């Protein structure tokens, strides 16, 4: 039986740092970068105060942070780090190493725009740029979700059918530095939920020597990649199983996505993370005026839940996908192109358009969300979309 949860007021970063404290990983290696710094800063305090048994390694770059985390994880430790933006970009080489070694590393990422121009504020260009690295990606709307997702991520990553690293994303400053009320589980409940980490193959098991990262050329490389892809496919089921178990513990239910007033919605916005909260306010306002609008907030985008999203949007007549990162493909943002492709074999296809928004932290308010719903209304009257890709709120 779960102990009572504690109601606290915390920033997203502090909430995630507390999740790390409760998980009590064996090793955390980190390098400071805005706006993630708080997470490891708070955590280093927990280390100093003896609240965790973690070996905390301060390194000289994010490349080294991920390298040290990979080394620790391969050695058999439960290892974590956290980063943002340029830090994630600098890790890129090691991201592939982590996923191909099948190391269940959990990494909170605080989303921030990539340079240049230099910018420290939120968009999703950092994690959208690492979609092909073989990491599971989970996005969080609030501090509560960031906290819950980090705890669940440990179980997802370490599941024997998965064994893949997980990024848990939250929006830079908006979520990471905003104080919210949330509920945190009792320490012993988290400890029990994540359990003791028992790796099956690891370097420090000298009785059964193993090699990580050997040379595999034309002979075996393909099979390694196929196994990674299969693990990613397995993750979908595991994510739902872990969510169900977590719901029993916490009372908070998670899926691959969240539908908000979606059942009979004709016009739907699809958007990740904190902007979903803004969208919910607009949905409520328009619903009170009798308009059939809704929100679909993907939680997991690696693996991409194509069938589930198509199914959830089967009743929609017009869909606006909002991406918080440019891809420069000229065909729209990442979520848009993947969701649009997912509809290719669907019997009914809604009108679908894309908005690139909120780049470098540009504020997206209810005013912009109203405009998107209103554009969809015009599209429905017109019978086709006015424009495939729109950059929202741009200076003329």
């Amino acid at each position, binding site marked *: 039986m779960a102990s009572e949860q504690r109601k606290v007021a915390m920033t997203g970063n502090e909430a995630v740092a507390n999740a790390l404290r409760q998980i009590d990983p064996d090793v955390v290696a980190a*390098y*400071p*970068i*805005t706006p993630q*710094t708080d997470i490891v*800063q708070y955590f*280093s*305090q927990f280390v*100093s105060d003896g609240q965790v048994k973690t070996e905390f390694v*301060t390194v*000289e*770059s994010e490349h080294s942070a991920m390298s040290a985390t990979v080394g620790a994880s391969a050695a058999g430790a439960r290892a974590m780090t956290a980063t943002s933006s*340029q830090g994630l970009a*600098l890790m890129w080489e090691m991201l592939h190493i982590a996923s191909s070694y099948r190391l269940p590393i959990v990494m909170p990422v605080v989303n921030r725009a990539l*340079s*240049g121009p*230099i910018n420290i504020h939120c968009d999703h260009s950092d994690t959208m740029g690492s979609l092909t690295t073989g990491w599971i990606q989970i996005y969080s709307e609030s501090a509560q979700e960031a906290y819950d997702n980090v705890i669940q991520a440990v179980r997802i990553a370490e599941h024997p059918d998965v064994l893949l690293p997980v990024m848990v994303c939250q929006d830079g400053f908006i979520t990471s530095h905003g104080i919210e009320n949330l509920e945190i589980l009792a320490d012993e409940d988290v400890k029990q939920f994540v359990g003791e980490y028992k790796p099956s193959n690891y370097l420090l098991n000298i009785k059964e020597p193993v090699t990580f990262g050997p040379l595999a050329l034309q002979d075996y490389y393909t099979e390694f990649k196929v196994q990674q892809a299969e693990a990613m496919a397995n993750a979908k089921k595991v994510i739902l199983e872990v969510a169900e178990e977590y719901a029993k513990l916490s009372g908070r239910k998670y899926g691959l996505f969240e539908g908000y007033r979606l059942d009979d919605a004709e016009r739907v916005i699809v958007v990740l993370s904190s902007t979903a909260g803004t969208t919910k306010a607009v949905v409520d306002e328009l619903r009170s005026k009798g308009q059939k609008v809704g929100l679909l907030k993907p939680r997991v985008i690696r693996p991409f839940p194509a069938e589930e999203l198509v199914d959830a949007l089967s009743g929609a007549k017009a869909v606006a996908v909002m991406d918080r990162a440019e891809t420069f493909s000229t065909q729209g943002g990442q979520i848009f192109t993947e969701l649009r492709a997912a509809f290719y074999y669907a019997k009914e296809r809604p009108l679908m358009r894309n908005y690139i928004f909120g780049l470098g932290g540009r504020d997206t308010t209810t005013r912009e969300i109203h405009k998107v719903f209103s554009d969809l209304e015009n599209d429905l009257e017109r019978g086709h979309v006015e424009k495939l890709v729109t950059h929202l709120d741009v200076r003329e």
Partner: protein
Amino acid sequence: MALSFEKYLRTQKMPHIWCPGCGHGIVTQAIIRAIDELGLNTEKIAIVSGIGCSSRAPGYLNFDTLHTTHGRAIAFATGIKMARPELKVIVITGDGDAAAIGGNHLIHAARRNIGLTVVCFDNNIYGMTSGQYSPLTPVGSFASTAPYGMLERPFDLCELVVGAGGTFAARSTTYHARHLVNVIKEALTHNGFSFVDALSQCPTYYGRRNKLRTPLDMMNWFRDHAVPVSTWEKMPPEEREGKFPIGVIKKVDAPEFSEVYSGLIEKVRERGDE
């Protein structure tokens, strides 16, 4: 006549982001004074920086400036110097930028003896991300990630540059403001790689944690612990304890890399090879 700073500054970018009492303004003005006193053509100067408090300086400087990524300023500057050897290329960096994440670029630029002047605004802390220890944080001093005191040994950046084959290394501090200008002038006129370790105070994240409560306390600390290099060389090891040398620590002549490279191009062309 007093130096008019306006023509060297992007005054529309003021106020700057540095904290009250920060030493980075003193180092920035020393660079401006050095350029002014040498009468350098500002059209032939490129200033490059990485990421951190120091690296904000080029944003305020009215030159051709390039603000790059964390640790990589010297790498970008190397490209500029190779493409336009006639330019005076100045790198403004910090101890975290130059010695931690970008340490590799520093030693290789020194080894090659490429004609860059690197001024490291060395406040021995990561100021911009709120005071984590850097590879320059002294043993025993406190940082947000060293609540019980720093355990790791710091670099001596001048010795690092010299050890990597650097032909010019010098040190000064924000207390020795005039001396700092002179040292930077010498660095700017050196033909080859020149490195200036400019000790600067971070009262916000270093001083407060280390019983140096005011910027003045920190600058007085520089005054009390700096020793001219000529005196330093005569001091027995026990007297050197806790002190550090300032002045030009190394200056030797060696072929500058972009010139060596141009020479090779000339030679190959003369031979008539494709």
